[in-house]
């Protein structure tokens, strides 16, 4: 049941967007691996946000200004997944151009 590249991409992207939008609001809110250990071993408070991150567009996966937390998380997941798709897709063109032996200006040597 081989599918065409177009269908494969659409299906896989739909799965990713669906998970990030509709499932992520119901993900476990418990502290995860490092956070739990950091809390137990008393170094969690040493963690801080970089000053750049004070202005993060979507801090902590919650779309700002949306009061319903699940909607805020789902919206963050939707936008984030599409943004990462776009950047990853763009990356392929960077790698592709390099592979032809003509590195784009500004690329690492």
């Amino acid at each position, binding site marked *: 049941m*081989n*599918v065409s*590249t177009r269908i*494969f991409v659409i*299906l*896989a*992207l739909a*799965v*990713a*967007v669906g*998970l990030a939008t509709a*499932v*992520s609001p119901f*993900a*476990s*809110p*418990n*502290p*995860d*691996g*490092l*956070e*739990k*250990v*950091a809390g137990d*071993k008393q*170094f969690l*408070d*040493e*963690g*801080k*946000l*970089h000053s*750049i*991150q004070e202005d*993060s567009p*979507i*801090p*902590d*996966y919650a779309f700002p200004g949306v009061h319903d937390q699940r909607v805020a998380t789902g919206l963050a*997941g939707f936008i*984030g*997944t599409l*943004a*990462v*798709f*776009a*950047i*990853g*897709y*763009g*990356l*392929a*063109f*960077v*790698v*592709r151009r*390099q*592979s032809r032996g003509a590195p784009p200006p500004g690329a*690492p040597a």
Partner: protein
Amino acid sequence: MIHLPLALHIPDGFLSGGVAAVAGVLAIAAVAYALRVANVEPDEARVPLLGVLAAFIFAAQMLNFPIVGGTSGHFLGATLAAVLLGPWLACLVMAVVITVQAFAFADGGISALGANILNMGVLGALLAGLLVGALVKVLPHARSVFLGVVATVSWFAVMVGTAATSFELAISDTVPLGTSLPAMLGVHSLIGIGEAVITTAAVAAVLVSRPDLVALGPPQLTTEPGRVPRPVERSASA
């Protein structure tokens, strides 16, 4: 207090300047090398696959699943990326995901970005590339054997990233190795099971729908009859 979602995402403040800088240099070196050797043909299906895989890994990383003791864990994805794209393209995909998480979502530090790319991306991707590649050569080329290899290696990749994180925290004088390593490995041995389940399911789905997109799969499983397999990655000397 600001809530910091971590998993293996190290926030700023956990690592010393020296450790963050060394990890940053290693991560930049790996990404720069990956940009040199990774090769994607213009007409290839792998052009959109890079975007799709980055999107899937980002999405799956948002899905914290509960494990024992009021703790959760989430998928990392380095092994999945390496199995589908080869280790060096996988490093690039993981670097994209982790960088977006840090800058857009305040998830993982900025000065710790190199360490996070190293722990969650580069180490796992390169380990998976080495191990899966080596095991495919010596083991029978059956689908079940290959998926078993993928499951096992993805678990190990999580454990290696976890151990690296503990070492970095210890060298930074944040928490002694003897304190953090057993706790970190214990929690992540369970998170690694989730990693193995998701990675294996995703690879199995691609093997069914588009076997040619499984870069590290045995040729018998990934090549359609009558189709010439493409070289995965150009060698470093090319």
